[in-house]
């Protein structure tokens, strides 16, 4: 019986090639999207779960409140984690990490810049599951100046040599002895590293870290099994109180520690200072939703076409019933057929995936490189998908088709019922509502990205080359490089700074004039030389720039931005005093700074963040803030030539280190990488959703055209024009698409408003977006349906009528 059904179904598929290919293609595209998104979602959900202790590991972070404003960061100070281990028996172990910036790493004559260097306690191997290939996990990182390399990095520096015992020179000042090689960190980790250096190095060499108040490192603790971390969290205020509560009280700061379960960090933690850019649970929901809906659209196609074509099957159903087939048997037959469709579709979907996986990788910036066949759940998962889709798509048609009574078939009074036509309309509206929502979403995302790229940032970001890592040179060296570069042809200006837009920057606590001692404010600080503001085109709204000629500028003058002036409530900021605790003074004395100028607000961070109050200082030595960047403004045109000159000067200046630089505008734009990827993804999926929907519409319209051939012929004989007939045939579909627009607009508005709110500065969703969406969807529908309509309309009526 099964074999007969199979043969029959396959023959049916072959006979109705158009119908079958539309159905299979639609289902396949939907399934491919669904599989792709599922793989992505599963990967997002799998982050950090590969650690054996995943459920027992927590990251310690802190919330700092000062002047009524709170900030959270995933950071702690050096003594905090060890204190937790000794104080609370449920804390079994702890590991501290410290992130090292871009660092030059040298072995013999090989030298590279490395971004992925972490300092770590040896307990990292006990707490996390980072298996060592070489070396002793019990003591690899216990001594200062030891390091463990990832396999890839070990090969990069040492090739086939055994790296154990060899040394790497970091930033030309520290020699690390290699004590181990660790397996590369899996991609689904919220932090990764290429090189682990022993945290003991920092303990020994950087005494300032041991202060409780120097909160610059990361710490993860391992709890006992089945321990409620909330209970531990509740005990932590006591720890802070005991160890530096008094100090904090003095400066009007309160600090609260909190714990984050390791497995929730990747999707739910978005603080300043994360170890790496995390994922976003909203996107997981969003794309899961998209996957489900795209699959539904494909199923709807199947349902629509199957019911529209039901008449073609009516005779068969009637006859089978006269042979004694019961309805349940017919239902099974039809569902079996749809599962067969689904099976063929999944095969095509896998082919599509193979073809388009690299493309998806380049769109998302994340390769789904796992060969999915190897995943244990993949085949069973696919079978479940096949069954689900087969049932979702096939159930309604099966019930509908199997309901035909033989008597109706025999009497030939099977008109495709009005109710069914209405049902199909509802389904078409559903499909288009979803596609149109995606189209509107795409337009809004691109509008915002366009806005973000074209908005006035308050500085001129083009044609600026930045050389990082200036902090490794002495002041005099920085100055001489600066002078040398200023003289080059094609160089407009050269300036030094502690941070550049999009990178760097730190916060310090200040006491502006008019605020009482317990109201100190945490404010961003930037250190610049006197060339920085003009070089970057940052405008002064009042006062003056720093000047070399005025000796006090490098000691006690500051410039603030408009937001700072507004926050401090100053109408006239020039001459106001901003005090700051003197880190050199033991008993909490103050340093005074005088405001000499106010700059127009400029964006130091992406447009996701509002412009924050900013205090700009000149070379003020007691600050921790150090010069790290050299920015060079170039003349437009012939940039390559100028770059060659600069590179040349660099090698004279320091022949040891390769010339390392970035363009300011590119670096700033990188902050929107995730937004751009989102835009590309939404665009891709809306294209696919539209494609699937159009396939359905095409099938449906050719079916109605076929049904109406005679009616159209009669109308033509009666004098209807071709245009009139095309319009007649388009009318009902256009109406459906318009209606879908009406449903889609509020939906898109609500979803996209939420996304836009992640930007401090964003476009408004205007009517224009929706008008454009309506136009696009209309054009798509007219093109899809129009072809059939025109074909039917120009048919010679005599021919159509002769068939009768």
């Amino acid at each position, binding site marked *: 019986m099964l074999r*007969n059904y199979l043969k*029959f179904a396959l023959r*049916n598929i072959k006979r109705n090639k158009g119908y079958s290919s539309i159905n299979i293609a639609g289902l396949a595209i939907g399934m491919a999207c669904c599989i792709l998104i599922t793989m992505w979602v599963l990967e997002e959900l799998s982050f950090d779960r590969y650690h054996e202790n995943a459920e027992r590991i927590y990251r310690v972070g802190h919330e700092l409140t000062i002047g009524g404003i709170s900030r959270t960061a995933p950071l702690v100070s050096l003594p905090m984690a060890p204190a937790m281990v000794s104080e609370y028996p449920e804390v079994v172990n702890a590991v501290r990490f410290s992130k090292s910036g871009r660092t030059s790493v040298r072995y013999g004559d090989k030298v590279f810049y490395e971004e992925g260097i972490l300092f770590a306690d040896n307990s990292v191997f006990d707490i996390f599951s980072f298996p060592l290939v070489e070396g002793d996990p019990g003591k690899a990182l216990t001594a200062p100046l030891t390091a463990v390399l990832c396999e890839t990095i070990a090969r990069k520096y040492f090739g086939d040599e055994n790296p154990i015992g060899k040394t790497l020179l970091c930033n030309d000042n520290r020699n690390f002895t290699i004590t181990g090689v660790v397996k590369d960190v899996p991609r689904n980790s919220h932090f990764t590293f290429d090189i682990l250096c022993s945290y003991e190095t920092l303990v020994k060499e950087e005494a300032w870290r041991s202060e409780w108040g120097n909160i610059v490192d990361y710490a993860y603790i391992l709890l006992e099994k089945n321990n409620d971390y909330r209970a531990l969290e509740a005990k932590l205020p006591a720890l802070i109180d005991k160890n530096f509560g008094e100090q904090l009280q003095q400066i009007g700061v309160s600090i609260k520690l909190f714990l984050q379960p390791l497995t929730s960090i990747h999707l739910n933690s978005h603080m300043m200072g994360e170890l790496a850019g995390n994922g976003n649970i909203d996107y997981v929901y969003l794309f899961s939703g998209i996957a489900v809906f795209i699959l539904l659209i494909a199923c709807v196609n199947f349902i629509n076409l199957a019911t529209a074509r039901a008449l073609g099957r009516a005779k068969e159903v009637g*006859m089978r019933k006269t042979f*004694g087939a*019961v309805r349940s048997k017919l239902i099974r037959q039809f569902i079996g057929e749809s599962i067969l469709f689904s099976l063929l579709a999944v095969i095509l979907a896998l082919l599509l995936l193979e073809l388009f996986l690299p493309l998806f990788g380049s769109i998302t910036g994340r390769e789904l490189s796992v060969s999915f066949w190897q995943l244990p759940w993949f085949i069973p998962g696919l079978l479940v998908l096949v069954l689900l889709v087969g049932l979702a798509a096939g159930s309604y048609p099966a019930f509908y088709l199997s309901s035909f009574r033989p008597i109706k078939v025999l009497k030939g009074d099977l008109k495709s019922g009005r109710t069914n036509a209405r049902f199909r309309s509802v389904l078409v509206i559903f499909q288009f509502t979803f596609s149109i929502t995606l189209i509107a979403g795409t337009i809004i995302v691109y509008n915002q990205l366009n806005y973000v790229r074209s908005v006035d940032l308050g500085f001129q970001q083009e044609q600026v080359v930045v050389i990082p890592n200036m902090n490794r040179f002495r002041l005099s060296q920085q100055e001489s490089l600066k002078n040398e570069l200023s003289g080059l042809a094609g160089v407009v200006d050269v300036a030094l700074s502690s941070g550049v837009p999009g990178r760097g920057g730190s916060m310090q606590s200040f006491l502006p004039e008019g605020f009482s001692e317990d109201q100190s404010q945490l404010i961003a600080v930037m250190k610049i030389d006197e060339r920085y503001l003009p070089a970057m085109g940052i405008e002064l709204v009042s006062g003056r720039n720093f000047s070399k000629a005025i000796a006090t500028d490098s000691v006690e003058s500051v410039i603030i931005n408009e937001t700072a002036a507004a926050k401090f409530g100053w109408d006239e900021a020039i001459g106001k005093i901003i005090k700051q605790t003197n880190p050199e003074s033991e008993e909490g004395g103050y340093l005074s700074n005088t405001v000499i100028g106010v700059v127009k607000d400029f964006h130091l961070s992406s447009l996701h963040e509002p412009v924050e109050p900013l205090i700009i200082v000149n070379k003020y030595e007691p600050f921790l803030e150090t010069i790290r960047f050299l920015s060079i403004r170039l003349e437009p045109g012939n940039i390559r030539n100028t770059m060659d000159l600069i590179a040349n000067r660099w090698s004279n200046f320091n022949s040891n280190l390769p010339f390392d630089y970035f363009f300011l505008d590119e670096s700033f734009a990188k902050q929107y990488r995730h937004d751009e990827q989102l835009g590309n993804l939404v665009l891709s999926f809306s294209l696919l959703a539209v494609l699937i929907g159009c396939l359905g519409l095409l099938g449906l319209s050719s079916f109605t055209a076929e049904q109406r051939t005679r009616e159209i012929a009669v109308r033509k004989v009666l004098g209807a024009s071709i245009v009139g007939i095309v319009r007649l045939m388009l009318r009902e579909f256009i109406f459906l698409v318009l209606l879908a627009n009406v449903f889609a607009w509020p939906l898109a508005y609500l979803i996209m408003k939420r996304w836009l709110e992640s930007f401090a500065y964003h476009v408004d969703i205007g009517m224009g977006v929706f008008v454009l969406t309506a136009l696009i969807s209309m054009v798509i529908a007219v093109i899809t349906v129009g072809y059939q309509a025109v074909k039917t309309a120009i048919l010679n009526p005599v021919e159509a009528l002769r068939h009768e």
Partner: protein
Amino acid sequence: MIQLRNITRYYASGSLNTYVLRRINLDIREGEFVCVMGPSGAGKSTLLNIIGMLDDASEGEYHFLDYNVHNLKEKQRSQLYKEYIGFVFQSYHLIDELTVYENLETPLLYKKVKSSQRKSMVCDTLDRFQIVGKKDLFPSQLSGGQQQLVGIARAIIAEPKLILADEPTGNLHSEEGKKIMELFTRLNEEGVTIIQATHSEQNASYSKRIIYLKDGWLVDNL
């Protein structure tokens, strides 16, 4: 075998009922060859459909064998189709997607006949109707007469006790019609009960009993 008591069939059209069959009383015994005659629209097809349980009477009682048809569930009807009834239609109603062979095989599938036996039954039937050469053709590749031949073969392959044929020769020319009628006569001689609707006197002459319908009334029951 078949007992119709006061069978009435009407269609509600507006507030009026259109009567198609009026108080039909009819008994048909096993082995009979009955012909239902009457002008077009007289209700012949309706009567056959009711006898074949494809349609329900509006009023009256119908007993088929020992079953009160009115009370039968769908499953039981399907069971009766499988066991006792073969249908032949004016427009053949072969399944277009199936070959001649497969069309013949299909009723056996629902009867759960075993594969090997199915094969021999289909082959026997093909032989008997002399259409072995056509077994791999699709209905669209056959002439009308050949299609009806297959239709009849399909109706009898499951060895029904009753064949209901609604104008089986309506779409055929007289030569082909004659062949079909001879076939029915032979089947009847083998013991199969046959009820056919027709308005051709020539066809009627093959049957042993003729029933006349006019405006829904059974006017003559010979």
